[in-house]
């Protein structure tokens, strides 16, 4: 039977349907005060906190000294543990007290200098010092021990040079290899940029799953979904406007985070094309929203949506490389990372914002993300169709 008024997807009524449905989603979203407050906070306050507060750098780690030598050399070595990395926190009398202060969390490290340290050094004997480090936070512990090793190593080199008579003003007058590092993309090694972008991507991911899933399950709860099923709308016409509306809103949120928080307050450079960045973000939101819709076909109420969002979000974050480089994961997890859309989005976002790269380098990430998106959205439509068809 030919069909005059229903028309195809891109006929006038078809497009009008997409338009009114998208408008409806936006109106409903803007009227949900609690959700809007959460949304605005996440794209401003939360990103501000992440960028300014959270740091993976070692700063002012308290260090105590257990000095059994009381010599010029031992004091010289201890005095080299200084801010910004370390903060001297007095001395301890014996090993037991050292352990207690570590246990209390009162100090993060204890430098243990053995007796006859200076004497043996001057005699040219091998001598070792011990650095006890609290590594319950493994990253900070690792940093403290490596910085500590660096300080001790440098001191040892200077002590040796002095003994051999190679000391010169401001360095060593002998055959030494200097490692000269060039820091690219983030020359001041500003944590705020990395943490800020990483948090932005996390928040984008969260809302890409949550918003469409919440919108969908609200229709299920209220029974409006049945009302829509008896109208001439196709599954696509019901689901796609939700994704479009949520994508628009999340892009707006990202713009607020970039131009309202990370740009003016943390001087994020945004080196690449912002148009590309927002296009890729849109693609990413579309891909992830598919996961949200898939979740909504399983969930029966808003509380379940909340739980499912966490269940989806956590592995996505862990597998994406946002917290640990993919190369450091065991091989089977590395395989899973390739199907996490966030992995590609991270590549693209850091690439554009910090490195200034363009589509010529990012096309493969974009292609992979688009492919994942289509598969996930199709799966969501299929499940939706089965439930209500």
């Amino acid at each position, binding site marked *: 039977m030919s069909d005059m008024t229903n028309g195809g997807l891109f006929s006038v009524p078809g497009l009008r349907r997409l338009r009114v449905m998208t408008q409806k989603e936006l109106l409903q979203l803007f009227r*949900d005060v609690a959700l809007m407050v959460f949304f605005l906070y996440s794209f401003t306050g939360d990103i501000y906190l992440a960028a300014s507060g959270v740091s993976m750098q070692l700063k002012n780690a308290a260090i105590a000294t257990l000095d059994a030598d009381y010599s010029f050399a031992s004091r010289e070595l201890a005095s080299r543990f200084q801010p910004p990395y370390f903060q001297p926190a007095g001395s301890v009398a014996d090993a037991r007290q050292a352990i207690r202060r570590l246990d209390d969390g009162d100090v993060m490290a204890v430098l243990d200098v053995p007796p006859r340290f200076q004497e043996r050094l001057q005699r040219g004997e091998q001598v070792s010092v011990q650095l006890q480090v609290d590594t319950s936070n493994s990253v900070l512990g690792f940093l403290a021990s490596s910085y500590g090793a660096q300080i001790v190593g440098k001191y040892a080199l200077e002590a040796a040079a002095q003994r051999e008579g190679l000391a010169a003003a401001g360095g060593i007058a002998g055959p030494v290899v200097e490692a000269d590092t060039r820091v690219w993309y983030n020359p001041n090694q500003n944590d705020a940029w990395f943490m800020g972008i990483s948090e932005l991507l996390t928040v984008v991911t969260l809302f890409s799953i949550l918003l469409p899933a919440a919108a969908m399950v609200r229709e299920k709860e209220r*029974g409006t979904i049945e009302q829509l099923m008896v109208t001439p709308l196709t599954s696509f016409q019901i689901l796609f406007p939700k994704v479009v509306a949520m994508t628009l809103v999340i892009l707006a949120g990202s713009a607020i985070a970039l131009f309202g928080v990370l740009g003016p307050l943390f001087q994020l450079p945004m080196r690449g094309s912002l148009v590309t960045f927002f296009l890729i973000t849109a693609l990413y939101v579309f891909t992830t929203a598919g996961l949200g819709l898939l979740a909504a076909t399983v969930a029966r109420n808003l509380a379940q949506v909340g739980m499912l969002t966490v269940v989806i979000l956590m592995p996505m974050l862990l597998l994406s490389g946002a917290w640990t480089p993919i190369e450091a994961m065991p091989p089977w997890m590395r395989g899973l990372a390739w199907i996490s859309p966030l992995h590609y989005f991270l590549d693209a976002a850091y690439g554009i914002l910090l490195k200034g790269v363009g589509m010529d380098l990012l096309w493969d990430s974009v292609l992979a993300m688009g492919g994942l998106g289509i598969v996930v959205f199709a799966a969501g439509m299929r499940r939706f169709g089965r439930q209500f068809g």
Partner: protein
Amino acid sequence: MSAPAIRVEDFIKRYGKRVAADGLALTVQRGEIYGLVGADGAGKSSLMKSVAGVLAHDGGTVEVFGTVIDSERAAEKVKQRIGFLPQGLGLNLYPDLSIEENVDFFGRLRGVPGAKLAERKNMLLGMTRLDAFRSRPMRQLSGGMKQKLGLVCTLIHEPELVILDEPTTGVDPVSRRDFWAILGKLLEEKGITALVSTAYLDEADRFHRVSLFHEGKVMGEGTPAELIARVPGTLALFRAEPQADALPRLKAQFPQTEAMGAWLRVFAEGLDAAQARAAVDTCLAASAPADTTIHLSDWFAREPELEDVFVAMLRQRGARLNTSLPADAPAAAPTSTLAIEATGLTRVFGDFRAADAVSFAVPQGEIFGLLGANGAGKTTVIKMLTGILKPSSGAGRVAGADMRSAGLAIKERIGYMSQAFSLYHDLSVVENIRLYAGIYGLDDRRARQRSDWVIGMAGLAGFENDAAGRLPMGLRQRLALGCALVHEPRVLFLDEPTSGVDPIGRRMFWDILFHLSRREGVAILVTTHYMSEAEHCDHLALMFAGRVVADASPEAMKQALIASAGQLLELRVDRPVPAQNALRDAGFANVALHGRAVHLLSREADTDRERLPALLDKAGIAVQSVGLRPLSMEDVFVQRITALEDAGRRSP
């Protein structure tokens, strides 16, 4: 004399800005079954919760057994003497516990000692006929059984006062009757006072005295008979041809005129039977245009029902019954085209047949009612016909096309309104209408026109920019109807469209449906659990356990019942419970308790009228009056289903 069970004065309760109860007053004497009757949001629940001591009120006095409930501590003092069953089917019970575990839990919660608990539990479970299912988890019970279990748990500590908030809402008529019978017996035997609310006006005669609630106010208090006597008048039932012309004329003079299928129902306020007949004749003759004459036939006049009186009271307070439908639109030409045709529709979920070979046909322009208890399969049938659910077998043709193969085009010819009035609560009235206009592909000009039509039809002028969720139930319901009509469908499906709506709202709603069917030729399929509403339909199909077990006009169904089981007799007596027992012993199968009266079906009504008072007199029961009552659809429903259930038990 001891203090009354409940005394309420100037009761005020607000929720934010909304006033739920505005100066309510009532007194419940000990041993009384007192009814609060009114629609959703009339203030019944607020009052009941305050009496039960679980909700603080904002003004006035609430006294229970002489104790003023003004603090947590005061409420604690009387709580042991009260049993409270909150609204909602089984909401206070634990779904994963069995019947017995639920009862035990409530017993121990109330500190009932072990031996007493066992004894009462056996007695109560026996009376409610739940003892066969002791170990069944509560979530697997039917609505009626859940309510009975709720009642048992409420009575387990032998309270002196029970507060039951809408115990029969959502329960099918058979279980509802059963519930009232058990309640009446229990209260009588134990001398318990009961405060019970209901949204069904036709349940008012189950109470000794009632308060009629409307929008936070009491409209009237007294025995059902006293209340009916408060607005004198005559209820006239008759046929008039052509009906669609007669209705608007009569409505102009008698605002309380309704179409009930092929019949007209007029409440002539302040007139006796003869005056009413004369007034109706004059009205029809005087206003008829030259070329049409209206023929009146089959005239019956009788006492009005409580609902007629309630609506009259509301009108006296300024309520309007009019919608802005054009009264003079031409009647739709009668057609024999079938709008809906179900043939052998079946839907199987696992090994459960939700719909089993359902067949019926609805011509264009007819109002067709699908009646049945919860779970009988009504919603499943509607879902299959609207294309939400695929039938396992059988076919449904709607507006001339097979639902399975017709695709999306067919959906433009049907409108659907679901149980929940599924509107977008956070969108305004206009936004909801425009949304559906857009979904149905109407262009902007058409969308504006139809939006104006919906607002006029539903009486929504002035509410255009209010959020749909904040509208009163009646308006929300008509908005949902408007949204289902925005694209002018030829077939309209309504799934329980009047749940929770007040009588005025329900009348306006049926007026609109009548207009649609008679003037615009729309075919309407409606499901309802308000048995009184079934009488509005031209044709009914009664569903039981997924099957259609009767398919006829309401009138034909009643005639069939009279032929098979007899006429309905009402006896007003001084002691209804012993009277009920005596009549059962005398061999009457269908004896039901209605407040101070007893109803029964009698094959020889004339002889029984003479002989029953003497029979009861022998048992020491005084009969005040005996009279014939018109059968209601509920009588028909209960009779048919009980017969089927009995047959099912005999041949499993």
